[in-house]
C-alpha cells in the first residue's frame, strides 16, 4: 500500500516546498548545532584543563617527595577549594592506586590512558545528573635534579559537571527550532503563492477550454508576461482562432450546401406547379381512349412521374426545413385513436384487412403535432405494406411518461447490413434495385419528425419474421402558448 499522494497541484506544490524547506532547515540546524556544541564543549574542556594545570602547578610543589595519603587528601582538598566557578571535585591516585579525594569514581579507560603517560586525558560521560567532564592529569616532577620532568606516578583526576554548557546547547536547539517554524511557514506561504501564480493561468485555460467545448469558439485569453505559461496561453489563443476559422468555414460550406438544396427544390417548384396543374387533364385524356395507345402511355408516364417529382421536391423541401432548423411543432391535444384512424382513412387503408390496430382501451389523449405524426405513421405503414404482406400490425401502449407505437410487418425483415442505414437519406438497400415508390427520404423525414417531438424512432427485426419500427414519444411536451 502506497500512501495516497495528493492529486491536485496546489497541495503537491505546498508539500514539495515544505519538504525542501524542512530538509534544508534540518541540515542547517544539525550542522550548526554540532559545530556550536563542539565549540562550547571544547572551550569548557580547554579552560578546565588549563585551570587545573595552573592549580596543580602551584600546589604540587608543596607535596613532599613521597606523600602520604593524608598529604594527598589535603592536596585534593586544596585543589577542590581552588576550583572556583568550575566546581570540580578532584581525587589523586598514586601509581594506579585508589583515588583519594572527592572525585568519586573514574573509568578504567581513563586510568589506563593516564597510567604510563605524561599526557592529560579527558572524557565526557553521561551521568544520572547530566553530562560530566572527567579529566585525568598525571603530575610530573618539577625541575629539581634528575627527576625533573619525570612522571611522579601521581595522577590527579577531576570531575566537573557540564550543566551550564548543557543549558547553552538546549538553548541552541530551541533557537534552531524557533527558526524552523517561521521558515516552514514562509515555505507554505511561498508555495501557495507559487501555486497561485501557476494555477491561475492554468485555471483560466481550463475555463476557456470548457467554454470552447460548449461552443463559444470566440473565447480568447489575455496574454501577459513572458514565461512558459504565457506561451501556452498564446498557443491556446492560436488554436482557438484556428478552430473558429475552420468552424466558420465548415458552417459556411454547410449553410451553402443547405441553401443550395433548398434553392434547387424551390426552383423546381415553379415548373412543377405548372406541370402538376395539367397532370389531371393529361390523365383524363389518356384514359378517354381518344389518343393513340403509345401516346396515351407516354402521357400517363409523364403525369405519373410529374406527381412523383412533386412529391420528391416536397420531401426535399421538408428535409431542408429540418436542416435549417426551421421546422416547428404545432402541438395539439388529440386522441390517439383519432390520429391513427385518420391516417388509415386518408390513405384508404382498411381495417383489419390491411392494418390491424391494437390501441389502449382508455384512448389516451396525446399532445403532438398531429400532421407530423400522421406523416410518420403513414410512412411506416406504407413501407410495411410494400415490403411485408398485409396485414400490418400497429400496436400502441401508453404510460404516464411515454407513448410507444410499434408498426410490425411479417415480410422478410431488414437485412443486417441494411439495418443501420434504414434512416439514411436516399439509402438504397440494394444498389441494383429499381427506384422505390417513395422519394428515398421517407424514413429520414419520419425520424426527424419524431425527433422534433423529443422522441425516438428505431428499427429492428422480429425474432421469427418481419421488421418492426418503434416510435417512442414523451407525453410531457412543452406547452406552446396557443390553444
Amino acid at each position, binding site marked *: 500500500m502506497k500512501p495516497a499522494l495528493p492529486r491536485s497541484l496546489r497541495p503537491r506544490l505546498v508539500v514539495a516546498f515544505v519538504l525542501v524547506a524542512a530538509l534544508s532547515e534540518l541540515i542547517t540546524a544539525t550542522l550548526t548545532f554540532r559545530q556550536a556544541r563542539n565549540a562550547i564543549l571544547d572551550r569548557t574542556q580547554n579552560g578546565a584543563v588549563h585551570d587545573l594545570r595552573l592549580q596543580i602547578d602551584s600546589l604540587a610543589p608543596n607535596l613532599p617527595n613521597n606523600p602520604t595519603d593524608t598529604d594527598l587528601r589535603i592536596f585534593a582538598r586544596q585543589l577542590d577549594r581552588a576550583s572556583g566557578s568550575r566546581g570540580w571535585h578532584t581525587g589523586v591516585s598514586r601509581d594506579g592506586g585508589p583515588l583519594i579525594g572527592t572525585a568519586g569514581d573514574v573509568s578504567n579507560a581513563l586510568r589506563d590512558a593516564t597510567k604510563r603517560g605524561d599526557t592529560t586525558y579527558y572524557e565526557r560521560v553521561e551521568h544520572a545528573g547530566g553530562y560530566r567532564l572527567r579529566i585525568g592529569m598525571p603530575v610530573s616532577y618539577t625541575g629539581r635534579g634528575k627527576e625533573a620532568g619525570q612522571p611522579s606516578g601521581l595522577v590527579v583526576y577531576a570531575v566537573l559537571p557540564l550543566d551550564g554548557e548543557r543549558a547553552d546547547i538546549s538553548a541552541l536547539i530551541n533557537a534552531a527550532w524557533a527558526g524552523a517554524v517561521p521558515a516552514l511557514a514562509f515555505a507554505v506561504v511561498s508555495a501557495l503563492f507559487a501555486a497561485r501564480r501557476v494555477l491561475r493561468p492554468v485555471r483560466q485555460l481550463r475555463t476557456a477550454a470548457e467554454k470552447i467545448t460548449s461552443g463559444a469558439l470566440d473565447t480568447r485569453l489575455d496574454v501577459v508576461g513572458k514565461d512558459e505559461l504565457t506561451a501556452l496561453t498564446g498557443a491556446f489563443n492560436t488554436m482557438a482562432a484556428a478552430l473558429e476559422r475552420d468552424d466558420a468555414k465548415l458552417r459556411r460550406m454547410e449553410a451553402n450546401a443547405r441553401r443550395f438544396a433548398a434553392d434547387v427544390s*424551390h426552383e423546381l*417548384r*415553379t*415548373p*412543377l*406547379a*405548372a*406541370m*402538376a*396543374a*395539367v*397532370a*389531371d*387533364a393529361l390523365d*383524363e385524356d389518356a384514359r378517354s381512349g381518344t389518343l393513340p395507345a403509345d401516346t396515351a402511355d407516354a402521357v400517363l408516364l409523364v403525369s405519373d412521374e410529374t*406527381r412523383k417529382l*412533386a412529391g420528391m*421536391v*416536397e420531401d426535399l*423541401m*421538408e428535409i431542408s*426545413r429540418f436542416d435549417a432548423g*426551421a421546422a*416547428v411543432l*404545432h402541438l*395539439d*391535444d*388529440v386522441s390517439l385513436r383519432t390520429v391513427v384512424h*385518420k391516417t388509415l382513412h*386518408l390513405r384508404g387503408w382498411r381495417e383489419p384487412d390491411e392494418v390491424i390496430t391494437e390501441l389502449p382501451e382508455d384512448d389516451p389523449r396525446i399532445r403532438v403535432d*398531429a*400532421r407530423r405524426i*400522421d*406523416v410518420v405513421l403513414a410512412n411506416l405503414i406504407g413501407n410495411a405494406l410494400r415490403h411485408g404482406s398485409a396485414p400490418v400490425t400497429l400496436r400502441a401502449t401508453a404510460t404516464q411518461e411515454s407513448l410507444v407505437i410499434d408498426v410490425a410487418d411479417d415480410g422478410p425483415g431488414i437485412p443486417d447490413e441494411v439495418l443501420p442505414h434504414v434512416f439514411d437519406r436516399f439509402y438504397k438497400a440494394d444498389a441494383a434495385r429499381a427506384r422505390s415508390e417513395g422519394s428515398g427520404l421517407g424514413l429520414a423525414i419520419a425520424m426527424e419528425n419524431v425527433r422534433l417531438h423529443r422522441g425516438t424512432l428505431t428499427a429492428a427485426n422480429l425474432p421469427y419474421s418481419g421488421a418492426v419500427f418503434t416510435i417512442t414519444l414523451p407525453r410531457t411536451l412543452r*406547452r406552446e402558448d*396557443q*390553444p
Partner: protein
Amino acid sequence: MPRVLLIEDDPAVRRGVVLGLSRNGHETEAVGTGEDGLDALIAFKPDLVLLDLMLPSMSGLEVCRRIRESSRVPIVILSARGDDIDVVIGLEAGADDYVVKPAGAAVIEARMRAVLRRLAPVQVGTDTGVGPTQVGDLEIDRDALIVRKHGEELPLAPSELKLLLFLSAAPERTFSRQQLLEDVWEHSYYGDARLVDACVMRLRAKIEEDPRRPAYVQTVRGFGYRFGPLPA
C-alpha cells in the same frame, strides 16, 4: 360555374392552372401582376381570386389587403413557399384558404369549392328559417348570411362568416382546431391549424369590443375555441 381570377407571375404556371381550371368548366382570367389583378377585380368581377404570394412589385400580401378593403370575394392563396410564415401572413391579411404549390387541378378545385360554400356541410339544412338571433351586440341572420353589430352589417370574409356561423350554431361547445379545419375549411388532410388561428384573429378584430379579451369567440386553452358564454 364560378368565375376565377388568377394572379400569378410565372407564365407557365398561369397557363397550366388556367388549363386545369378551364377543363373543370371555370371561366378564368389570368394576370401577371398585382396591379393588373386589382384592375381585373373590377372589370372581370370574379367569384373567387387565386393569388400567388410571390409577385413582382406589389406583393401578394399587399394585393390581398387591397382586395379586402373593398371586397368580400373569397381569396385562396397559391403559396409557392413551404415557409409556413408566408401562409400565415397571407391568412392574416385576409385570405380564406391556401394551396401549396405544386398542386394538381383537383386539389385546387376542392379548395375553391370549399371556400365557395356559404355554409359548413354540417349546418346545411339546419337552423334555417328561424330569423336572426341576437347574441350580445351581435345579430346573426343565418338565412341572409349577414352579421350585424349594433345594427350595422359587418364586412366578413367568407371564411370568417362561415366560422362564426359554425361556432354560434353550437354555443358554448368547444371545437378543436383540427375539427374546425375539417368542418369549416373541409381540409381532408392535416392542414395547418394556424389557418384557424388566423381566421379567429381576423374575426375577433371585427366582432369583439376588445379583441384581446374576446367575449364571443373564446379560446379554451389546450382544446380549441368556443362561442360564448357572454360574460354577465
